[in-house]
């Protein structure tokens, strides 16, 4: 597509439930990144994909967080047993090489 698409745009979930966030990057972009943005905080790196593999998953906060990418395209970030501190905007970005990322509009996750 023309841009990075994320769904859903908003998600409200109950504490303890699992959620899946989806990212559809720009066609042909081999690199895909997930970041988290909490109120008043900078963007926090979560995980990086090159193709379908994840050479750097050092930013995942706990083992409740996981992500996969299939076909070198769509990626899914899964949060199991959600906690209130997981509430944030989850941003996906893609890039080709070392130029600036193109970000999606994000998924605003609220855990109640």
């Amino acid at each position, binding site marked *: 597509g023309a841009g990075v698409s994320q769904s859903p745009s908003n998600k409200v979930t109950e504490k303890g439930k699992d959620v899946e966030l989806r990212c559809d990057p720009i066609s042909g972009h081999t690199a895909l990144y997930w970041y988290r943005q909490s109120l008043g*905080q900078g963007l926090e790196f979560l995980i*990086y994909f090159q193709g379908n593999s994840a050479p750097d998953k050092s930013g995942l906060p706990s083992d409740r967080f996981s992500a996969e990418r299939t076909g070198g395209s769509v990626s899914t970030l899964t949060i199991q047993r959600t906690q209130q501190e997981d509430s944030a905007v989850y941003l996906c970005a893609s890039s080709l090489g*070392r*130029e*600036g990322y193109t970000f999606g509009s994000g998924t605003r996750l609220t855990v109640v």
Partner: protein
Amino acid sequence: EDQVTQSPEALRLQEGESSSLNCSYTVSGLRGLFWYRQDPGKGPEFLFTLYSAGEEKEKERLKATLTKKESFLHITAPKPEDSATYLCAVQPLTSGGYNKLIFGAGTRLAVHP
């Protein structure tokens, strides 16, 4: 530890009142410094990449400059549509050759008519 600090946290300007935003960084070797603009409810939008001290880039009313310790985003004669949060990010040399960025918390700019 690699770190990015942006100041001020918030800035209010009158239309036409020029100013500068600061991005100070501590990084174990700099591969690149990036500026983004973020509007409410949207993802950050890429503005500039700077790679070496002394480099400058311009786009409309914005000019970004880079030294060995900090970067400035100069806004000349701003308009209300320049109101947004401006994010600075660095790419360390230790990022393994890919584009992992470390972001500052941003500066919220409000330009009033």
